[in-house]
């Protein structure tokens, strides 16, 4: 009874935690509540599970906690998305292992009562084992691919085999067949276990083959979706071992993860199906290595003079700002401008950077006032009043092709109307296309000036020049 009540309390903490995580003021408290719920759930489980081998349990918890804490401290803010992917993958792997570890010692015993399908109890149990292995394995390798793409260990470009959808469908069918074989046909533990091992291998392959064809720019959505999967894998593992708290928390994360994925897709004006099956940019109609003509470049000195005369400057941060760690330099730059009587605003595209909200986190780190961060819908009408738009390492989110070129792979994605500013200064490391690998017409416009260099270096130079004016 006490155990049930404590588990209920843990579940309640998860619910309030998630709820509070969705609002700025209470988010931190929400996270802490959820963490408390987790600690409670772990302790309760350790106490009520009989015949637990304490040494291994405590050793495992300490080891995992140490690695997790170390990684969380060490990771840079710019690498947050891939870190979340990695953590999520480990969660999936854990669920897959739980499924197998549950199957091995019990298969023989349960089979002595006949096929798993003969009893409702064992049928549900076996399906739960299969699902935790399948979804967990898929989450594991899928997250690893997302990690590798974001870390740029492998190309961010969509990579698909010919007939990729067909191959995936085939693998899916194989999963169903193997599940039926294990459920109703095989009667020896050896065969059933072999079945599940095959399922594990297929799920690992599926994780890769489902994620590889999705472009790097869509990885945040993929991570969010995989996050939902790992919740579902957890819930399945909960059925397998008969732990209600695991079923509750897993199902909750699974469902809210889908909603969050939908919200993210909406910010990019895409549907989930479009992200998963679209092979974003794979055919590259107008994108790719198109040559740029008639671009004009400028120097920090020239640019500083433009800023000196400006009344309203809008800064558009992107991933380039994140990699260069330029947020503090930007803060100084904005202070200098404000001293000169120029109003400074920041245009925050919901998916600038490598994941939604990425820019808010970085700029907050540099103590940039929250009121100056303006979201896309509000800022888009401001650009026409702006003297200068300074684009710091953003690319796809300011590409006018999304509005004008129906052939562009990003057509329809809401973008920032930077081209309406009197002058656009585009800070970029090189002429390379952005993360999505799409040509940006903005560079060729009459009022666009290119300023090449690392974002931090460029902004520091601008600061120097401004001080001298």
């Amino acid at each position, binding site marked *: 009874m006490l155990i049930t009540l404590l588990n209920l309390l843990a579940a309640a903490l998860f619910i309030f*935690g*998630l709820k509070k995580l969705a609002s*700025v003021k209470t988010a931190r408290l929400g996270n802490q509540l959820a963490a408390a719920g987790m600690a409670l759930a772990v302790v309760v489980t350790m106490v009520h599970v009989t015949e637990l081998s304490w040494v291994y349990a405590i050793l495992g918890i300490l080891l995992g906690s140490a690695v997790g804490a170390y990684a969380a401290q060490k990771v840079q803010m710019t690498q947050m998305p891939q870190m979340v992917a990695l953590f999520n993958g480990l969660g999936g792997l854990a669920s897959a292992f*739980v499924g197998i570890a549950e199957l091995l010692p019990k298969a023989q015993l349960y089979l002595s009562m006949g096929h798993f399908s003969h009893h409702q109890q064992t049928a549900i149990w076996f399906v739960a084992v299969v699902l935790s292995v399948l979804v967990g394995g898929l989450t594991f390798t899928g997250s690893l691919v997302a990690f590798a793409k974001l870390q740029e260990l492998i190309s961010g470009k969509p990579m698909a085999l010919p007939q990729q959808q067909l191959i995936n469908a085939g693998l899916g069918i194989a999963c169903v067949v193997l599940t039926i074989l294990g459920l109703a046909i095989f009667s020896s533990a050896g065969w059933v276990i072999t079945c599940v091992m095959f399922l594990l291998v297929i799920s690992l392959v599926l994780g890769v083959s489902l994620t590889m064809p999705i472009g790097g720019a869509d990885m945040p959505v993929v991570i969010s979706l995989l996050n939902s999967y790992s919740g579902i894998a957890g819930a399945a593992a909960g059925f397998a071992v008969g732990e209600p708290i695991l079923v*509750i*928390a897993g199902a909750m994360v699974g469902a*809210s993860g889908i909603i969050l994925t939908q919200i993210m897709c909406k910010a990019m004006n895409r549907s989930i199906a479009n992200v998963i099956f679209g092979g974003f940019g794979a055919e590259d109609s107008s994108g790719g290595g198109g040559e740029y003509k008639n671009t004009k470049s400028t120097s920090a000195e020239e640019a500083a003079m433009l800023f000196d005369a400006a009344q309203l400057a809008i800064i558009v941060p992107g991933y380039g700002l994140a990699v260069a760690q330029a947020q503090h330099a930007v803060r100084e730059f904005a202070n200098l401008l404000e001293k000169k009587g120029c109003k400074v605003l920041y245009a925050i595209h919901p998916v600038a950077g490598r*994941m939604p909200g990425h820019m808010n986190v970085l700029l907050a780190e540099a103590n940039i006032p929250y009121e100056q961060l303006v979201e896309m819908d509000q800022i888009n009408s401001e650009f026409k009043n702006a003297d200068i738009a300074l684009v710091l390492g953003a690319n796809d989110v300011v590409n006018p092709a999304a509005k004008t070129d129906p052939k562009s792979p990003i057509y329809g994605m809401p973008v920032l109307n930077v081209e309406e500013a009197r002058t656009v200064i585009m800070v970029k490391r090189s002429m390379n296309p952005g993360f999505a690998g799409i040509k940006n017409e903005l560079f060729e416009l009459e009022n666009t000036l290119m300023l090449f260099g690392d974002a931090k270096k460029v902004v520091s130079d601008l600061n120097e020049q401004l001080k001298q004016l």
Partner: protein
Amino acid sequence: MEMLLALFVLSIFLGFELINKVPPTLHTPLMSGANAISGITVVGALAALAVATKGAPFSKFLAFLAVIAAMINVVGGFLVTDRMLKMFVKRK
């Protein structure tokens, strides 16, 4: 089993209802926080470790690995989320 199924379905509905409006600022932390909660599978890993104690050394090994992996997910996830959120809070 029926109870678990009922809990499962109710929790799915709860999850759908819980999150409806999220400011883009919080997309990343929310995802990361939810991700940490999905590390709840550590509970399953502990339960599997107990089952596996009755022989089956390979099962025990797998369950042990699962505890480690899930704990990395949990502790890393919550701490990373907190690091992100700390930045929003301090400038009040």
